[in-house]
């Protein structure tokens, strides 16, 4: 019964369990999806690579100003001639059809997402793609009930109307999921869209274009143009769009806000975050550890609402950190297509450089850096799960969004101090509260300046729940009934 036994001779090593790539068919090159067809762009093309191997996956067209103009015109034509004239129940049929095709092709989408983005297959399979389908199902249900969608007091009457053409720009962290968050409500409300996926992760959006064809969606209702920042600027600045929806960095969000200032384009921005995950001394500790891990290591920490600041009550800090480190030692970093991988590849060399830079600054500023022992693959972009102890509000790693698997650990003494520290940020996208005391959850949640507050959980998403930020985390809400308001007038 004492602890002096020798360890078992052999250990339980999980053999590789890779998901097959054979289900996806990546073409050597892709054009732009405009007016229901793939067309060649007028601009240059660029390569998209697999961040886990640096293998080139495909050449993708970079839309120039003329391409953007063609896409906006196609969207306008589709809006004027078809989509805005269809009754809601008819629009719903297309959305339901798209949702079902996404479910039918879910494995293909999940594998492609993991290849192009670097995220673990268990996340693309169990989180991203199921929520994508759920989002289309959810907004399909709203399409013929828009009269109930808007608060009457806002003076919008009972017959809300679509805005017109929406220009949508999405990030690389949840490529297809962000596409769904943008396209599903826009289409349900009767808008048509021009969507630009991120430069490093265009492939699932292009597969979605094929799904639109498969669903017989009228040409021009959805247009997908690939490209980098210049393409995005051309889209945002195009006079033919009525609405800009952007998810991405706060810097780009500010630039977009400046561009559209003075026009009558409506804007929603979902930007960065530096969320506090607050653990009180009466928290369910083992589940809090899981929540901390989910909060910061889910999707390699490439999550705008990541719980990147752990605020732990000082009286339990040592115990919690010991548990957290032990748990981090079981995280499996590696091949995104292996079904047992917990942490995949960093999405790009650029992002890896940013994570390294901020982590080095954290060390230089005197915080204690710790990572479990883990072997990183030779090729591709990788960063081990990392935590920094003894971080204070005066550290840059407590203030700036790292957007990687790096956790800053701070302590607090009282609930008031926890709230003060949590709110001491220019961001305000999300927060977490861990305590077994229900009354404390309600009180603290009311005091936190964050668009989403999770209690005894973290990073849970559902199409019925609105999502969005305070301050530099952006404005407007996506998801739920609130998400409709961004696409109606």
């Amino acid at each position: 019964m004492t602890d002096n036994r020798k360890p078992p001779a052999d250990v339980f090593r999980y053999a590789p369990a890779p998901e097959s790539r054979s289900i996806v068919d990546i073409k050597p090159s892709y054009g732009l999806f405009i007016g229901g067809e793939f067309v060649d762009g007028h601009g240059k093309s660029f390569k998209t690579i697999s961040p886990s191997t640096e293998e080139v996956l495909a050449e993708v067209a970079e839309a120039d100003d003329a391409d953007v103009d063609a896409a906006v015109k196609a969207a306008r034509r589709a809006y004027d001639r078809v989509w805005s004239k269809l009754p809601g129940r008819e629009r719903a049929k297309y959305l339901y059809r798209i949702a079902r095709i996404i479910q039918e092709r879910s494995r293909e989408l999940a594998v492609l997402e993991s290849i192009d983005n670097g995220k673990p297959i268990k996340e693309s399979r169990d989180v991203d793609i199921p929520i994508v389908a759920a989002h289309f199902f959810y907004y399909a249900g709203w399409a013929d009930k828009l009269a109930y969608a808007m608060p009457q007091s806002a003076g919008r009457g009972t017959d809300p109307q679509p805005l017109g053409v929406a220009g949508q720009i999405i990030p690389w962290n949840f490529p297809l999921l962000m596409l769904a968050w943008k396209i599903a409500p826009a289409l349900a409300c009767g808008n048509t869209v021009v969507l630009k996926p991120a430069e490093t992760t265009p492939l699932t959006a292009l597969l979605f274009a094929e799904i639109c064809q498969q669903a017989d969606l009228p040409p021009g209702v959805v247009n997908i143009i690939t490209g980098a920042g210049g393409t995005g600027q051309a889209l945002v600045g195009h006079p033919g769009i009525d609405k800009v929806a952007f998810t991405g960095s706060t810097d780009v969000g500010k630039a977009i806000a400046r561009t559209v200032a003075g026009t009558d384009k409506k804007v929603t921005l979902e930007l960065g975050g530096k969320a506090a995950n607050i653990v009180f001394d009466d928290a369910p500790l083992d589940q809090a550890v899981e929540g901390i891990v989910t909060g910061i290591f889910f999707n390699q920490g490439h999550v705008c609402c990541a719980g990147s600041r752990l605020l732990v009550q000082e009286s339990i800090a040592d115990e919690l950190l010991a548990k957290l480190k032990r748990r981090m030692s079981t995280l499996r970093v590696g091949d995104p297509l292996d079904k047992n991988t917990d942490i995949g590849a960093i999405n790009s060399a650029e992002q890896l450089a940013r994570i390294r830079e901020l982590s080095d600054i954290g060390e230089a500023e005197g915080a204690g850096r710790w990572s479990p022992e883990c072997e990183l693959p030779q090729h591709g972009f990788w960063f081990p799960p990392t935590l920094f102890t003894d971080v204070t509000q005066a550290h840059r790693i407590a203030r700036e969004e790292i957007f990687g698997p790096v956790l800053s650990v701070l302590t607090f003494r009282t609930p008031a101090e926890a709230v003060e520290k949590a709110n001491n940020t220019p961001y305000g996208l999300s927060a977490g509260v861990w305590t077994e005391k229900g009354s404390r959850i309600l009180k603290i949640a009311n005091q936190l300046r964050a668009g989403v507050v999770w209690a005894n959980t973290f990073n849970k998403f559902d199409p019925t729940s609105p999502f969005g930020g305070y301050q530099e985390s952006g404005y407007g809400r996506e998801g739920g009934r609130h998400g409709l308001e961004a696409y109606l007038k």
Partner: protein
Amino acid sequence: MTSTPTVLDDVTRTESSLRQFLHGLPGVDQVGAEARAAGLGTRSIKTSAKAYALDLAIRMVDLTTLEGQDTPGKVRALAAKAMRPDPADPTCPAAAAVCVYPDMVATAKETLGSSGVSAVKVAAVATAFPSGRAALDIKLADTRDAVEAGADEIDMVIDRGAFLAGHYQQVYDEIVAVKAACARSNGEDAHLKVIFETGELQTYDNVRRVSWLAMMAGAHFIKTSTGKVQPAATLPVTLIMLEAVRDFRELTGQMVGVKPAGGIRTAKDAIKYLVMVNEVAGQDWLDPDWFRFGASTLLNDLLMQRTKMTTGRYSGPDYFTLD
């Protein structure tokens, strides 16, 4: 010799200190615990890892028959099966133990002993199994009876009524007393497994508390269920117990084993449990001395999967022995 580790001496001194300690353990968030258990259940165990896990699982089976209709013949057959789960394959390991009622211990011992070097142990349920509704001296007599008949392990049930009524000291004292009854004059004491019947305790907070209570009282193993109450073993309940033994070792340096029992019927399920043991308690527990499955039908599914691993084909149930 007192069973309670010295760091916890003060805790078990009075009813109120015991209550304070148990109620001061961190709570369990049900949704989070179930999500963690489900997450571990998605691990994909293939090829060499699967072969390792199947053999380990076979070695961890407490092959069980606990029926009113049990006869010496039935118990002999079960014991033979435990020694040679797959007579066609000499590389197949033996099960850990057979688990029977006290009156069948002698028969089981005889069968297992007669084969010479069999390491298969005999576990006996005792203490008015499965309900535990009897006076303490009857439970102790029941235990001593099984120990005298040669049981290597005693699977006792706690008094769930006393636990739910908050009489923690009573439950604690009873475990201590049963443990004393497991003693043998030659020093080869029977090992004590303490069954909680988690299906009756219901909440994960209760499972965590009773785990600590039993470990402090000197349990060698903590066990989920009798198999007579639904739900029996579940992954989340086992998760809470594995966390408890892990934390107990952290605090006291002592290792306690875990035995989920009842409801684990497939190799796939068993492998999920082993993944959980590996990632929650750690690899030190991946050994029949520290983790067991209380099961009857599980063994044949493990054997079928094992044969499939070696031959590449599934064989029908006719190719595996009954019992």
